[in-house]
């Protein structure tokens, strides 16, 4: 009972946190690029873009920061046996993330927000770049930690202490899984930020509102989505191959492939029996799965039943199969919504060819809805990768059921679950309302030019304050 609640809580809290993270990562760099363009060209269009997108970025960033604190605490709170078992390995990237990334992010973002008019133009520009670098460093270290759970390298289990111990920190940081996860997550973050900018720009352009600012924004968004989209596909392919090799069960579950096949066909759509153990009807494309998983159209892909048997032989009797319908559908929803985002960007690129302004009604609505596409894809992507690893919390090493806190009863977990759900629900409403209202309002006019000049002691109001 406490186990199920703790798992639900981890899922809810982490997916919620990750609603904000990709936008933070993507927008921080895009805003840094806008500000760079302003500093280099002096064109005030870029300054207005920096301020407008910067404001939306900050509304989102605040939520990412505060929900991130819970992330670090909950390992100890709900998963104390997990923490005891993995602390020697898992704690280090977390501590380094704080020291190297969180300080950088928060200090320089503070300097960026309040530094307008107080720092010289170039120093002020450097602060947003450093904050953006901080967000990416943070992503790398936390993904290295997660990747170790997916594919534990550089460590052994010490039979005396009964815990996992670090033997090669370099191996943890250069884990192929971490490289795959980082590149996939970062490109997905840029895709998310690009779709966010695309939707809002399309809405304003359809109203012929601030055309100059939003045409530039739309172009930037389209380039971002198209480049990042190709990156997501390439890195996703890389990850699929790593997954086939490192976690064959997850790949088999993603395809609901019960029996080992060579070549294996890819199913676009399947109706399974209610318990998810049998296929009733499906639409299939021959050989695609073999190609996806192994790079060879006739390659062998292991099926669930065979991996289950192999796992029993290796780890003893038990159920080593994750929830197949969830793995199957989250995988398809992830790929589907990522693909839709890419298609929408292609349509946008076509509509604005040769200097046209896309005011097309269906495109505007599709682009607005498109803000949500990567959000859905990101969320189900994480649900897939975490639930597809079950019953393991550390693949092949520790079961999720063994990681939960023995001293925390179901009442405590239920209490925190209710508290976080209510709090997060309220905050979501506030955050989305603010984002929508600020996005609709559009960019602010610039203050009179003399106020932009940095000066130490002049008796004029601060350029920016809470």
């Amino acid at each position: 009972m406490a186990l199920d609640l703790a798992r639900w809580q981890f899922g809810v809290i982490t997916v919620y946190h990750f609603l904000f993270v990709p936008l933070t990562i993507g927008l921080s760099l895009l805003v840094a690029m806008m500000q760079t363009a302003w500093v280099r060209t002096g064109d005030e269009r870029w300054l207005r873009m920096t301020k407008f997108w910067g404001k939306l970025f900050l509304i989102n960033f605040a939520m990412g920061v505060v929900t991130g604190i819970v992330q670090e605490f909950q390992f100890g709170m709900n998963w104390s046996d997990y923490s005891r078992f993995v602390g020697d390995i898992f704690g280090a990237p977390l501590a380094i993330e704080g020291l190297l990334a969180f300080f950088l992010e928060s200090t320089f973002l503070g300097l960026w927000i309040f530094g307008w008019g107080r720092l010289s133009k170039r120093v002020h520009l450097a602060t947003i770049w450093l904050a953006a670098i901080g967000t990416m460093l943070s992503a790398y270290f936390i993904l290295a930690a997660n990747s170790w759970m997916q594919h534990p390298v550089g460590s052994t289990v010490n039979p005396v202490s009964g815990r996992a111990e670090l033997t090669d920190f370099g191996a943890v940081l250069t884990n192929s899984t971490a490289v795959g996860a980082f590149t996939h997550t970062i490109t997905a973050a840029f895709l998310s930020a690009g779709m966010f900018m695309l939707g809002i720009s399309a809405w304003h352009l359809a109203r012929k509102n601030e055309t100059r600012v939003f045409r530039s924004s739309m172009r930037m968004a389209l380039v971002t989505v198209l480049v990042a989209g190709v990156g997501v596909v390439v890195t996703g392919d890389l990850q699929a191959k790593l997954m086939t090799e490192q976690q064959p069960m997850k790949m088999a579950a993603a395809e609901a492939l019960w029996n080992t096949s060579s070549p294996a066909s890819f199913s676009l759509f399947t109706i399974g029996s209610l318990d998810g153990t049998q296929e009733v009807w499906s639409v299939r494309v021959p050989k695609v799965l073999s190609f996806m998983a192994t790079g060879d159209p006739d390659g062998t892909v292991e099926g669930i039943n065979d991996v289950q048997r192999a796992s029993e032989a290796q780890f003893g009797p038990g159920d080593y199969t994750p929830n197949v319908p969830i793995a199957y559908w989250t995988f398809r929803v992830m790929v589907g919504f990522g693909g839709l985002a890419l298609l929408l960007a292609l349509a946008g690129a076509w509509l604005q060819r040769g200097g046209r302004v896309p005011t097309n009604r269906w495109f505007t609505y599709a682009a607005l809805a498109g803000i949500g596409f990567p959000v859905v894809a990101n969320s189900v992507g994480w649900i897939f990768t975490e639930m597809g690893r079950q019953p393991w919390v550390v693949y092949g090493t520790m079961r999720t059921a063994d990681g939960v806190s023995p001293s925390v009863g179901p009442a405590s977990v239920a209490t925190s679950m209710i508290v976080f759900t209510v709090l997060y629900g309220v905050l979501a409403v506030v955050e989305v309302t603010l984002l929508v209202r600020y996005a609709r309002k559009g960019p602010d006019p610039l203050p009179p030019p003399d106020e932009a000049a940095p000066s130490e002691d002049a008796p004029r109001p601060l350029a920016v304050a809470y």
Partner: protein
Amino acid sequence: MFGLALTDIWFLLIALLWTGYFVLEGFDFGVGALLGVLGRDETDRRRVVNTIGPLWDGNEVWLLVAGGATFAAFPEWYASLFSGFYLALLVVLVALIGRGVAFEYRGKVDDDRWRRRWDAVIIGCSAVPALLWGVAFANIVAGVPLDADHEYTGTFFTLLNPYALLGGLTTLLVFLMHGAVFVSLKTDGDLRVRAHRLALRLGVVAVPVAAAFLVWTQLAHGKGWTLISVALAAGALVGAVLLVGRGREGWAFTLTAATIVATTVTLFGSLYPNVLPSSTDPAGTLTTTNAASTPYTLQIMTWVALAVTPVVLAYQAWSYWVFRRRLTRDDIPAPTGLPPRNTRAGARPEIPGTAQEQRAGDEVAEERPEVRR
């Protein structure tokens, strides 16, 4: 390294991280909790919030790094502490979420009701963790019921014992005073005067409470040498009260910071070599050795800490330098928030003496988005 065991180095580093956290977030807790008392009108409330505006988030990272370092260096400590203090930490988390969002969002809508709500969140969510951290650390020093597997066997109410509550009251009062001194250091005019008057009054209450807590700590858990840090903590606090009374805010702030440093040193000094003593089964006590990670992990972490910490300290100090100026009423710009949803006949409250009046013309421009193309 330097004749110290790696586990001792990490005990020291974690003590340092908590010290940094309490000194820095200590004043922003205090500033937040006193927002209602010090901010008589909207301009002053914004001045109070803006004294910590660019700083609070960087301050809070000290907590995250302290937590991460505990996880990495002493996983058993992290696991027992965080699962054992479950509900207390839940309250702390809710408070930290609340105040973080409140700072960012309070000015986003130009409406009194909106701001009042967020102000209440800032006040409550700053006071509660200021109290709870004292409760938590007093419990850590005094020990909590742990079984032989280092699992916490008490309840939430086990943590609310008299010694711990006195510890909580101490951190609350000292952080409030620290915050009041900070506001007086960072503002001018009437607000500055009110802040150091308030700091003086808080100090008068804080001195006996803190002294009682320090003496109790020393008698029940202290070592010979912690007598020095106890004396320094008490002396610094008395000095701070005397100096703030004379309007020497810079020195008073240095001394409230010194009080927090010496108190944290006393607590960690009394704790060593334990990290979480068991008050029931002695076998359950966690120490710097039985809670620690492997030497290999500690070594890597030590090199990373040695390489990165000086850089972090340098740029964080620089950010304090950038924002060193006192905030005057003229510094506060006109509100930039969205208009309230249901406008009550254009009822934007007039705040005398702010920059708002001079800037009233700008709002006209806001209504015409294309004006500056």
